[in-house]
């Protein structure tokens, strides 16, 4: 038997496998025993590294997959559910929409610019490796309080990173959310989402099919950056990690990404290849093993044939490098030349590194000498799944039980001052400073740009529109993860429905602390159950997502932050509804009920420094009716505007309805009468779910009320749109507020620029 067919043996220089080395690789003693059982022998150092990456939380989902199985994932329009690079749904007219969201929290905490930039790069690759052309991105960013110098540095770096990457590749940013709360002081949450479109028959999957087909490494060369990034992402940070962790943060090159994007879509269309996958987390290891695992074949590759950019890289390093902008391509045997021609056109390097086998293994050679051979399926699917019991923290239970009713009573000038303060908190204030650094109009398809309810783009050459929104109120989730997570789903659905689109499906990014703690496990379980309930009720299945644990610094976890990315469609973009009031004299109506729920509100946090109380309840039946009612109204063309009520309550929504987007003409005033028997501050600042403020011409008002009644949605006339450049007047139980629009505009548009203008 020749050397090449033998079993892998340790390379000269490999460290011996000791319990300490196993622990350093993030593997428990019992997991190591399982590895020995699977292998039938001790693994080599290289094999240990491969297992470590594939069985990390980031790739193996060991603390989450049992719970994630509870999520609803099917509907007639779902083409591809969880388990692929991205989820795919049928959006009609022969078009399919691929979409996915992913976290880049850890890298962004250490190096905000590159961390955020490579987060965008990764999510674009997840979409275009499905054969879809990326057409829009969104993000969800959660930072500490903006007063902190480090937070401002992180925000400036993240925004520049997101912008520089997406702008260069030429993908418009269609929306997102940005929150500020000290719960994220050390650990920002940086989640990026991408949407791509294709014809339904153009779908390609990340599989390595056809024994004898050729594996090619395409794109950037492999270096020593990001080795064990997947394992790094599965550990908590500690003080002083900034410097030590830098080599685990990858560096992005959006220009190469753009070339990869065009080359990949051309390769897929050419039929010369059978599969393609991003070398993302855990690089060559995960892309190779997952492609083999999905198709039930095997792969064999020789690391000596992988183009590298550093000297003397070991197989361990080449297999685990997370250098950016690399792809693994499976070309049809005999068609490698044709595939290479396409890659050459796009000035990309490609190297044949191996082939698809029928051995059922992930097999690695170094210059013909075997250095690793692992059964592919156990490697990708065999990671043990844990579901250890959780327990709610007593501290959170106490916060939730706290009596916050006294904060509801405010009157006179105090109420007016509070109104202006809420509108000017960074979480509520306009994010213009941020989204104007993102190209929002490239591809000439942006119908609703950032700054409204949800983003909405048109499929070129059609009337079909796709809306999307990312949402999560981490403070609500902290106080009650189940209702908070359900709240994120319904808020995202309301945002999509406000544009007139029908919500269809979600992706998610579940950002939590360490699952080794009972209270985090409790949060995670509750949040998953909240998403399950809400998605089942709204018939918006989960098509994929990402779990990010260990968002902790020195033992302090971020708020549980299950970010929801909701997508929906509207048949004709001519019926799209904007978020701001348009015509003086239009009637203003409230869909839903005011309940004055102040728990977990921005008002309590920003004005009283309090994070307490029961967060707003979620009535799933009411939300379902509301999100079906809005598209029906839009289709009839009877709405002047529609805007969701969320962070900052009615105060924030009414201010936004009056002010509209910047640079689009003068704001309009409004006069409102709110008769609810609720304490004034609770009425104005409560973040009760299930509410949307709409406006309609006097001629259309009756039809709006009729459609609402037909859907069982409460609909109350509450006021009238006023003149340009006037004021927002609100009359409530014995209180009257008059807020000049220029003062509101200054608070709303000025807050973030005033905080950030000294940042580069």
């Amino acid at each position, binding site marked *: 038997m020749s050397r090449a067919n033998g079993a892998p043996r340790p390379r000269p220089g490999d460290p011996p496998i000791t319990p300490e080395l196993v622990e350093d690789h993030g593997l428990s003693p019992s997991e190591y025993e399982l590895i020995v059982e699977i292998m039938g022998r001790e693994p080599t150092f290289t094999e240990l590294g491969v297992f470590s990456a594939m069985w990390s939380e980031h790739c193996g989902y060991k603390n989450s997959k049992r719970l994630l199985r509870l999520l609803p994932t099917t509907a007639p329009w779902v083409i591809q559910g969880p388990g692929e690079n991205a989820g795919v749904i049928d959006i009609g007219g022969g078009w399919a929409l691929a979409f996915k969201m992913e976290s880049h929290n850890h890298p962004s905490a250490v190096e905000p610019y590159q961390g955020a930039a490579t987060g965008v790069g990764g999510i674009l690759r997840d979409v275009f490796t499905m054969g879809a052309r990326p057409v829009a991105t969104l993000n969800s960013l959660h930072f500490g309080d903006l007063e902190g110098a480090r937070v401002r540095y992180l925000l400036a770096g993240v925004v520049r990173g997101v912008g520089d990457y997406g702008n*260069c590749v030429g993908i418009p940013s269609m929306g997102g959310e940005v929150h500020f709360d000290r719960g994220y002081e050390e650990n920002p949450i940086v989640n990026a989402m991408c949407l791509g479109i294709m014809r339904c028959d153009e779908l390609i999957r990340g599989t390595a099919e056809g024994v004898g087909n050729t594996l090619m490494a395409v794109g950037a060369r492999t270096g020593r950056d990001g080795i064990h990034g997947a394992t790094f992402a599965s550990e908590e940070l500690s003080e002083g990690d900034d410097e030590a962790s830098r080599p685990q943060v990858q560096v992005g090159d*959006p*220009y190469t990404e753009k070339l990869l994007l065009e080359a990949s879509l051309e390769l897929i269309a050419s039929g010369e290849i059978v599969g393609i996958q991003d070398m993302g987390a855990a690089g060559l290891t995960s892309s190779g093993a997952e492609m083999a695992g999905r198709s039930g074949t095997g792969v064999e590759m020789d690391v000596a044939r992988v183009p590298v950019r550093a000297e003397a890289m070991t197989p361990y390093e080449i297999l685990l490098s997370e250098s950016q902008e690399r792809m693994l391509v499976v070309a049809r045997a005999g068609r490698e030349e044709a595939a290479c021609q396409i890659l050459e*056109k796009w000035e990309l390097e490609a190297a044949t590194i191996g082939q698809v086998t029928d051995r059922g293994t992930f097999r690695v050679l170094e210059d013909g000498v075997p250095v690793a051979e692992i059964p592919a399926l156990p490697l990708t699917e065999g990671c043990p799944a844990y579901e250890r019991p959780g327990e709610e923290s007593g501290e959170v239970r106490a916060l939730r039980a706290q009596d916050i009713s006294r904060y509801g009573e405010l009157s006179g000038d105090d109420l007016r001052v509070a109104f202006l303060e809420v509108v000017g908190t960074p979480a509520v204030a306009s994010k213009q400073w941020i989204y104007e650094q993102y190209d929002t109009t*490239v591809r*000439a398809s942006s*119908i609703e740009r950032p700054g409204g309810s949800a983003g909405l783009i048109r499929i070129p050459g059609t009337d079909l529109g796709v809306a999307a929104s990312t949402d999560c109120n981490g403070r609500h989730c902290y106080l009650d993860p189940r209702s908070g997570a359900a709240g994120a789903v319904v808020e995202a659905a309301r945002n999509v429905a406000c544009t007139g689109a029908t919500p269809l499906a979600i992706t998610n990014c579940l950002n939590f602390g360490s699952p080794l703690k009972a209270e985090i496990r409790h949060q995670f379980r509750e949040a998953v159950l909240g998403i399950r309930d809400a998605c089942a009720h709204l018939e918006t299945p989960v098509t994929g997502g990402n779990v990010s644990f260990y968002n902790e610094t020195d033992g302090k976890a971020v708020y549980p932050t299950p970010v929801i990315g909701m997508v929906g469609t509207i048949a004709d973009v001519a019926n799209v509804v904007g978020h701001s009031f348009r015509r003086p004299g239009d009637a203003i109506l409230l869909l839903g009920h005011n309940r004055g729920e102040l728990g977990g509100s921005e008002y309590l946090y920003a004005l009283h420094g309090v994070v307490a109380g029961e967060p707003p309840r979620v009535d799933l039946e009411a939300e379902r009716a509301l999100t079906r009612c809005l598209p029906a109204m839009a289709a009839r063309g009877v709405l002047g505007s529609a805007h969701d009520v969320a962070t900052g309550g009615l105060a924030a929504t009414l201010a936004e309805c009056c002010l509209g987007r910047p*640079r689009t003409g003068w704001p309009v005033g409004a006069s409102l009468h709110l008769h609810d028997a609720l304490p004034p501050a609770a009425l104005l600042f409560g973040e009760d779910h299930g509410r949307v403020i709409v406006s309609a011409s006097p001629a259309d008002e009756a039809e709006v009320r009729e459609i609402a009644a037909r859907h069982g949605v409460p609909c109350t006339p509450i006021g009238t749109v006023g003149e340009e450049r006037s004021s927002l007047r609100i009359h409530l139980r014995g209180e009257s507020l008059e807020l000049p629009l220029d003062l509101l505009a200054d608070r709303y548009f000025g807050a973030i620029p005033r905080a950030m203008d000294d940042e580069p």
Partner: protein
Amino acid sequence: MRIAVITFPGSNCDQDCHRSVEAAGATAVPVWHREISLGGTDAVIVPGGFAHGDYLRPGAIARFSPIMTPVVEFARAGRLVVGICNGFQILCEAGLLPGALLRNRSLRFQSHDCALRVERSDTPFTSRYREGQVIRMPLAHADGNYYADRGALEELESEGRVLFRYSDAEGESTEEANPNGSLNRIAGIVNEGGNVLGLMPHPDRAIDLALGSQDGLPLFESLVDSVHQRTPAQMAAAEGRALAGTAR
């Protein structure tokens, strides 16, 4: 009529320009940067994006792409060439337009709508506009701060070669309405021959009311009209002026 739309590696507005040309009633012909001929097309558009990754500086590498040799010859022959955003930067680097686009005054990438005043309507690119008309379209760039030395700037102004100027909604070209620090609030200029246009904002993203504005469409329609109507004498005159400009 066939209008070439050049694609460099890193171009990302080529499809938008393609659709704009078709919306104006002409046929768009995609031309890859490594080609050495414009294939008999009637006009050329150099679209926006990040050609060659904007490495070194925007347009600095693109000017060496093989296709730029025939583009420069085409322009010198008095034929019509339009550069939008990165295309404007490339035409400056290629020496077809004077001046340079520096980093925005804000030092940030800026992406928002802007208002422009059309300074002349008697040019091949603006015949479908009214002189003094205020138009609205998106801009999206990090390097759009137009700079030229005093002599070149005076020449541009005295020869009426500034076609688009940043203004407010009422058409007042104030410093407040200057988004990026451009000298004289310049958004778009033509060469000496009047046959090469460069502008930073994106008419290709404003061809349809559903997108918020269709104020960019007349630019493409003007271009198409001009190609139809352009006489050999006009082209020769433009060629003469372009060559004289080069000699200076």
